[in-house]
């Protein structure tokens, strides 16, 4: 049985002017780490709110842990852990008080489910009397994850849990998710960071309320239809201009330290491209074939 099923979900805001979700369908298997990848405004949060029973879809149905989100929302709330994108614990309560409160609300205690949160909570323990509002960004997210886990949920919804978190904490956070997965918890996580996509079992690429593709990270990269080159030179902007001016250039985007380039006829255009750049750019440049990243795939799809 699939842990999360979404079936042709539609949702719009402001009387239909803004289409947040358009025909969203996907399934997440038990104990799968499923990523929703997409830029801001893709509809990720709306989708989370619908699945977490906070919002009703206009049409389409969905189920979590075999329960219908409309009819059995009360039962679902006992079984899911939801971590909203915005930090939403009580800032004026301490770390320990927050955790205690959410444990009690679910009718359990910290001791009962300590094994689940032990790894993260040990890092928080030195600050347990500190107010939640005074924690650093990474610590806040760890506490929020603890609070979402304290009732031993079978499904975990994490809405951009690593946004605004330092790289070390991000790494720790994802290691934690791997551990939780091994404990049998199904995790639906959203992120705007493409590099985190490769850490998921499967990902859905979302943009403007639509799902562009669903596959394993490797699968998505393999599907990438074209050859891709990375080009580099001392004057990157001039190089970009020249590369884009070449008549058979398919796409050329800046990717951090280099530009990623695709050509209309792939290898056939390669020599012509090199010649064209040499003629127009006049200075030395490097070009090298690379394998596509998730981000390249995302750019190609959108």
């Amino acid at each position, binding site marked *: 049985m699939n842990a999360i099923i979404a079936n042709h979900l539609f949702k719009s805001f402001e009387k239909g002017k803004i289409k947040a979700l358009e025909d969203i369908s996907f399934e997440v298997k038990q104990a799968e780490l499923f990523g929703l990848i997409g830029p801001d405004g893709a509809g990720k949060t709306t989708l989370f709110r619908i699945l*977490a*029973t*906070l919002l009703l879809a206009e049409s389409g149905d969905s189920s979590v842990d075999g329960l219908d989100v409309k009819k059995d929302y*009360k039962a679902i*709330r*006992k079984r*899911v852990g*939801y971590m*909203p994108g*915005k*930090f*939403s*614990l*009580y*800032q*004026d*309560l301490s770390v320990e*008080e927050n955790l205690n*409160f*959410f444990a*009690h*609300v*679910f*009718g359990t205690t910290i001791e009962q489910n300590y094994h689940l949160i032990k790894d993260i909570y040990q890092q928080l323990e030195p600050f347990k009397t500190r107010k939640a509002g005074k924690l650093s960004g990474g610590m806040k997210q760890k506490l929020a994850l603890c*609070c979402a886990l304290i009732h031993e949920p079978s499904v975990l919804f994490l809405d951009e849990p690593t946004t605004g978190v330092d790289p070390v904490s991000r790494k720790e956070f994802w290691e934690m998710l791997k551990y939780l997965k091994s404990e049998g918890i199904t995790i639906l996580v959203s992120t705007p960071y493409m590099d985190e996509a490769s850490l998921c079992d499967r990902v859905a690429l979302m943009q403007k309320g639509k799902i562009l593709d669903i596959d394993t990270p490797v699968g998505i990269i393999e599907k990438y239809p074209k050859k891709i080159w990375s080009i580099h030179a001392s004057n990157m902007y001039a190089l970009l201009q020249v590369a884009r001016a070449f008549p058979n250039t398919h796409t050329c985007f800046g990717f951090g330290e280099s530009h990623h380039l695709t050509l209309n006829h792939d290898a056939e255009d390669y020599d012509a491209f090199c010649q064209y750049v040499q003629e127009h750019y006049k200075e030395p440049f490097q070009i090298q074939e690379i394998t596509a990243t998730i981000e390249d795939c995302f750019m190609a799809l959108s």
Partner: protein
Amino acid sequence: MKTLLFLLEKEFRQIFRNSSIIRIIFVMPIIQLIVLPIAADYEVKNVNIAVVDHDHSSYSRQLVQKIIGSGYFRLVENTDSYKKALKSVEQNDSDVIIEIPAHFERTLIKENEAKLLLAINAVNGTKGNMGGAYLSSIIKDFNQDVRTDWVTFPRMNPMPLLDIVPRFWYNTRMNYQLFMVPGILVILVTMVGSFLTALNIVKEKEVGTIEQINVTPIKKHHFILGKLIPFWVLGLIVTAIGLTVSRVVFGIVPVGSLLVIFGFTAIFLLAVLGLGLLMSNFSDTQQQAMFFAFFMIMVFVLMGGLYTSIDGMPEWAKIMTKFNPVAYFIDVMRLVVIKGSGIYEIRNHIFAILSFAIVFNGLAIWTYKKQV
């Protein structure tokens, strides 16, 4: 039940951790109760008076002396031209002009009557009004003195004189504080009951914590009760503090029973808590809730009979005060504290407040459900 206890524990913890709320609840009432009744006093003192004396007789001097001697007036100008006096009014130096015409004494003796001119600056309505009234009564008194001077030995009074001596029941000395303190206490209880509740709930919305609460199995009525009960308790505490302050500082001992006061406060709090809940349903940010609250408190205070008597309002305003729960509470407080009314005498008020409680809470629950 257990969930509710945890919610209450959390709520009280947060309230007592927030030093500004503690200040609002405990320090503000004390300061307001001590300062406001002393400052916002209707008794007008220091009315500035300009005297235009065209007569310069012993009577005119006597009259002026009597006016100044009353203690309510301060002589700022003694001139012989009305124009000059009017100028001092224009410059805001004096509030009242009294003009004593030439031959005042002579006409008074000869014709047994004389005329005086009083001109009152009505920009500050209360001051003008009260000043004028004081002045009239002083002149009346002076008139009486003059008569007794002249008509010294009437064997039999040819004209029976009707002398009216007013007696003020319940507040015999017209103690203004006795009148104001219970009223101000009502405003404070209203603020705690409705506005702090509204702000507290809206804060959860604004900060986003309500998102986290909504995905837990907490039932809605538990959440609402968890919000209302702490402020119900705090409202009663504020009442107790207020009554203590008015007893210690102003020596006001309620004539009626404390039980009636607290009983009524408890019901009244139910009504205003409902109002707070209703307000929170219509605002998403604390800023919006503040504006709502500000608007409401203005209406409540100005239309509640705290400063202006309801009997003196136009007919439409009187009808409006029927829909103002604060007006009932102010009335009850005064009735019980000053007059000593019991439950039977205030039964209509109790019914009114009970219906407010039902209507406000009903509306609040209805609109709350519609939201989610």
